[in-house]
């Protein structure tokens, strides 16, 4: 059977070459950038693009024939369904159907998108526009999540698709209107596209050239702003700009590593003053950044509870705290309800790629003091703080580790478990506290988890809560008859992100492979179904690898982790890690490095605002509000005018070293001194600050000044459009100016074209050409004023409309023009005179009869001029439905 052809071969080839090929390239780019963000696309992007191309090419070939879209698409979808059914039918013993399905879904989806694209290009006139918007939206979304907000990056990521959009809309229209019989179509298209690319290139160069300084300015403001992130962007993507380039978000442990965690990328360094009883062996602790306490049944995901009942998480904003001034919140200690076996531990944290405002510490921290990074280490570590926490002496990374066969570790753990066995039930625990931390959603999925939990503890014969936890841990560590572990560690279990309930069921009962968040989530449900209060903690897993520097720990990106905390009456929250060890190389191979030098002792810290600065002399006067001297805080009331000598000081702003010129009157600063002069000047017992100040040398020698961004300005910026208002105004001004100039140029088109004809008519001497320019000038003038020739000949037009209307002799001129144009006869003298006089006589006569207003307004309309030069469509109207 011969299927009727809709598009000629030539047209189809043009579609393939000019539409499909660029689309495939851009789609490849889109898939490639999407890969950076969406882990669904975890297959190689080349193969995905090929799948898309196959879909599109098939559709273009098929729909070049007179075939039905709905029927074919239905058949295609049926084929997809059959493929998937087949995959499920071939059982997953050695053939992992799930992985196949995830892959197949991905490829089939792309094939289908390609199929739709092919259909659209083949049949739908407006498809190119819709398609462009679709691609732009995808790229916009992806870039919003992945790239640094630098102008060049944004332009770089959007520009290809933007250019493609313009191209595809233009070209598809060109091809749609192409006449297959037309000769030299290829050359015509090449010319047009060449012109198009030239124009695009010129615009691009012009943008860079003229707006370069503005772009740089905007970028600077952007950077400044992003260095003081707002309160609400705590949660977010895995990596994002936090002021100093990409910073790791510590909640990434819960989101999964997905091969993106960089093993070699250092996040922070911590010195933890926590040792075993021998005082030598370091006792590492997990570092907590947040708790996931609440399971949202609506979204089926774990969340940090926004209300935070029983909050024991200390969350100071470090950027708003002056250096060396303490922050403390002991209320968190009460919330843990830990009364037994607690000790206070101090730690120092040096952050490298962690946001400067971010606070992370072992639980339960209650104290923080920002400290300055030693100058020698400033190029690596951006900020640092000291923290104190009250930890249970039962808590230890070794304690929560899976012993995994290590006998020493098992024994160590067993000692502690025996202590915990004293807790037999939770009868003494507060009721609402228990209700909150054992809250478990209902449903078949959750019931089956509960059933599993009961089976596990029955098998183990566990009664005490701690035994139940151990039974669960052992359940995950169990091996089958072949000696193979039932549960395996996998960075890529197929479904990324925070596991939802059905993912957890799938993990528990079928797939049995996952990363820490899976184990933590599953354990949480198992524990809660047994009535043990528990929550998920996210943060960093601590590995002790160094014998050279005991107490120093290095945290790399792949140490982001999620685990479970269970609560024991009296003991408080204790860490439990049920994640099975990875059979792959989960142990971090990076060596520990040299720790940063210990911070110098800050003898004097003063906090206040600058009154006056003498940059040359290196002195300034500040109005001090608070003072720390030998770690004793003093409230200076009334505020004191202190002279400072900053000639040797480093000036810090945010986390970078800046020039002295940044010290301006009115801004808030923290001045720090490590000077020996103060070391020899200890404060006396109960000495008031007034006498202390009198004893100090003047001006005060200062070693470090930190500029604190004024809060009010920050708020004003936040209220504004997001960038500094000035640059927006300037940009808007440029845009308006450009639009204005463009508008003026457009408005001047009619008069310019007309003037050109008049000029040519006056200057050209050959009578034939003179007649031509005179004729065009007259016709354009009349057309512009609304007297259009329409489908009449010039002679008819002159005779029927112009001459009766204006009492002119346009017909005479038109006749002579026809003669000079189409005959080879020489003109008589009188005929020549007609041509010479036409310009002045006719136009002046017409002008006189029309009001200035009408002439002026008519000549402002470039559309009429364009209409004059546009050839009418052979099909009559501009749009005719294609059959």
């Amino acid at each position: 059977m011969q299927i009727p052809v809709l598009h000629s071969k030539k047209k189809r080839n043009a579609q393939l070459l000019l539409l499909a090929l660029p689309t495939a390239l851009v789609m490849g780019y889109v898939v490639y950038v999407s890969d950076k963000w969406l882990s669904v696309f975890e297959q190689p992007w080349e193969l995905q693009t090929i799948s898309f191309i196959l879909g599109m090419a098939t559709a273009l070939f098929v729909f070049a024939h007179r075939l039905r879209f709905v029927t074919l698409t239905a058949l295609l979808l049926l084929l997809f369904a059959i493929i998937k059914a087949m995959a499920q039918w071939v059982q997953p013993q050695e053939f992992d159907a799930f992985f196949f399905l995830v892959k197949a879904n991905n490829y089939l989806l792309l094939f289908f998108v390609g199929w739709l694209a092919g259909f659209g290009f083949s049949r739908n006139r407006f498809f190119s526009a819709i398609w462009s918007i679709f691609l732009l939206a995808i790229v916009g979304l992806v870039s919003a999540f992945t790239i640094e907000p630098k102008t060049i990056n944004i332009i770089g990521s959007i520009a290809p698709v933007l250019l493609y959009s313009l191209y595809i809309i233009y070209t598809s229209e060109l091809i749609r209107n192409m006449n297959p019989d037309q000769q030299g179509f290829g050359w015509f298209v090449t010319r047009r596209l060449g012109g198009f690319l030239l124009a695009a290139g010129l615009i691009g160069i012009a943008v860079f050239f003229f707006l370069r300084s503005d772009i740089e300015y905007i970028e600077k403001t952007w950077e400044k702003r992003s260095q003081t992130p707002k309160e609400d962007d705590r949660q977010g993507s895995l990596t994002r700009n936090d002021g100093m380039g990409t910073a790791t978000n510590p909640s990434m442990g819960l989101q999964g590593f997905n091969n993106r965690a960089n093993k070699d990328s250092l996040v922070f360094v911590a010195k933890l003053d926590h040792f075993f009883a021998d005082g030598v062996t370091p006792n590492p602790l997990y570092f907590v950044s947040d708790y996931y306490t609440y399971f949202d049944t609506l979204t089926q995901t774990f969340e940090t509870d926004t209300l935070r009942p029983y909050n024991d998480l200390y969350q100071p904003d470090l950027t708003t705290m002056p250096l060396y001034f303490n922050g403390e919140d002991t209320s968190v200690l009460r919330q843990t309800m830990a009364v037994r076996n607690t000790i206070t531990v101090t730690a120092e944290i040096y952050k490298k790629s962690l946001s400067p405002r971010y606070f992370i510490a072992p639980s339960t921290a209650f104290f923080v003091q920002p400290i300055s990074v030693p100058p020698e280490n400033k190029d690596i570590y951006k900020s640092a703080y000291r923290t104190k926490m009250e930890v249970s002496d039962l808590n230890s990374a070794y304690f929560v580790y899976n012993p995994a066969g290590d006998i020493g570790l098992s024994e160590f753990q067993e000692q502690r478990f025996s202590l915990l066995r004293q807790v037999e039930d939770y009868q003494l625990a507060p009721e609402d506290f228990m209700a909150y931390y054992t809250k478990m959603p209902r449903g078949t999925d959750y019931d089956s988890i509960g059933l599993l939990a009961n089976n596990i503890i029955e098998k183990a014969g566990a009664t005490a809560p701690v035994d139940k936890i151990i039974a669960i841990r052992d359940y995950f560590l169990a091996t089958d008859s072949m000696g193979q572990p039932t549960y395996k560690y996998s960075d890529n279990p197929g479904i990324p992100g925070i596991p939802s309930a059905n993912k957890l069921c799938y993990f528990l009962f079928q797939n049995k492979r996952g990363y820490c968040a899976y184990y933590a989530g599953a354990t949480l449900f198992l524990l809660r179904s047994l009535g043990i209060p528990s929550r998920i903690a996210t943060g960093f897993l601590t590995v002790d690898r160094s014998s050279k520097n005991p107490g120093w720990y290095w945290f790399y990106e792949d140490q982001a982790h999620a685990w479970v905390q269970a609560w024991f009456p009296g003991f408080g929250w204790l860490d439990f890690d049920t994640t099975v060890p990875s059979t792959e190389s989960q142990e971090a191979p990076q060596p520990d490095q040299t720790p940063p030098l210990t911070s110098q002792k800050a003898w004097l810290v003063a906090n206040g605002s600058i009154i006056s600065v003498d940059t040359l002399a290196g002195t300034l006067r500040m109005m001090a509000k608070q003072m720390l001297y030998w770690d004793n805080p003093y409230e200076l009331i009334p505020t004191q005018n202190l002279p400072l000598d900053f000639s040797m000081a480093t000036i810090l702003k945010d986390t970078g070293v800046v020039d002295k010129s940044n010290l301006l009157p009115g801004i808030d600063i923290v001045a720090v001194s490590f000077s020996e002069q103060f070391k020899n000047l200890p404060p006396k017992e109960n000495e008031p600050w007034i006498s202390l100040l009198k004893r100090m040398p003047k001006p005060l020698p200062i070693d470090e000044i930190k500029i604190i961004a004024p809060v009010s300005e920050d708020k004003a910026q936040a209220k504004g459009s997001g960038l500094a208002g000035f640059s927006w105004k300037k940009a808007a001004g440029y845009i308006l100016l450009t639009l204005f100039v463009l508008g003026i140029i457009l408005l001047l088109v009619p008069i310019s074209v007309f003037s050109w004809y008049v000029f040519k008519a006056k200057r050209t001497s050959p009578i034939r050409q003179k007649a031509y320019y005179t004729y065009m000038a007259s016709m354009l003038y009349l057309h512009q004023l609304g007297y259009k020739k329409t489908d009449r000949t010039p002679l008819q037009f002159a005779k029927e409309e112009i001459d009766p209307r204006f009492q002119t002799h346009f017909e005479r001129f038109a006749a002579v023009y026809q003669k000079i144009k189409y005959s080879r006869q020489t003109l008589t003298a009188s005929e020549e005179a007609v041509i010479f006089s036409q310009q002045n006589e006719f136009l002046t006569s017409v002008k006189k009869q029309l009001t200035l207003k009408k002439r002026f307004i008519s000549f402002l309309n470039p559309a009429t001029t364009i209409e004059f030069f546009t050839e009418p469509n052979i099909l009559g109207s501009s749009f005719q439905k294609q059959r």
Partner: protein
Amino acid sequence: MEPTISTEKAIENIAKLTQNIERVIKGKSEMIRFILTALLAKGHILIEDNPGTGKTVMAKTLAKSISSATGAKEDVAQFHRIQFTPDLLPMDLLGSHIFDDINKEFIFKKGPLFTNILLADEINRASPKVQSALLECMAENQITIGELTHVLQDVFFTIATQNPVETEGTYPLPVAQLDRFSMKIVFGYVDEDTELEIYNNYLGISNNLESTEQVLSMAELQHLQAETENVFIDEEIVKAVRNIVQHTRRHSDVTLGASTRSGISFLKCLKAFALVNGRTYVMEDDIQQLTVPVLDHRMIYRNKDGKSNALRNILKTEMDRLHKVKKD
């Protein structure tokens, strides 16, 4: 090319002829020009309209203007009129062999086709075989019966009339045969004033048809036809004709476009029309006015919309291009 004496004479003659006919046929000067154009282009014309719009009078007047009782025999145009009916046979047109009793042999009795001006009235009433016989003669200018070939007159001009195709009892002419006509025009009714004038004329104030005089001899007519060939036609005009003809073949509302023969016929008519209008060169207005009469009947349209618009749109496009063309 400057107008020569003979061209000027030709223009003068054609003006005389036009005026002469216009005296009889009122308010139809455009139609008269079209008919004269077909005559000068050595073509034939098909007039389509309802009965009683003056088609026959038109033909008669034309014949009388060239022929008269006075003047030499060969200088007088012969005029025949045939009323086509369904039972008409080809030999009624062509003539037949009749047995001569005196000489005892068959002699050929010429039919009405052997004439200068033939009025074929209501051509679509006759059966197809008669139609084709007539159209054959129009194309070949000769008649072949048996072994003998009879050449028709040098000047052989057919004015065929037909009722609108929708009328009952007709055999519509196929496009292939319509192609033989250089032009097809629709006569149409006259306006109010002209109609009153015609009635007054009939009421005997002066019977113009009776008093029509011969203004042109056959030799002069043949000279006019020869002179038509000398009319100058510019390259741009030829291009415009080419474009129009090509456009008709591509237009989506046209199933059968104009042929190359029709293009040639178009050029001939353009030249003739220029001369009829007293010019020795063809210009834009000629194309504008002739495109529909020359091409419309040779095309088959997809639908009514196409019939009323396609050719006009093509013409408009081409005219718009043409009027802006710059010539060096």
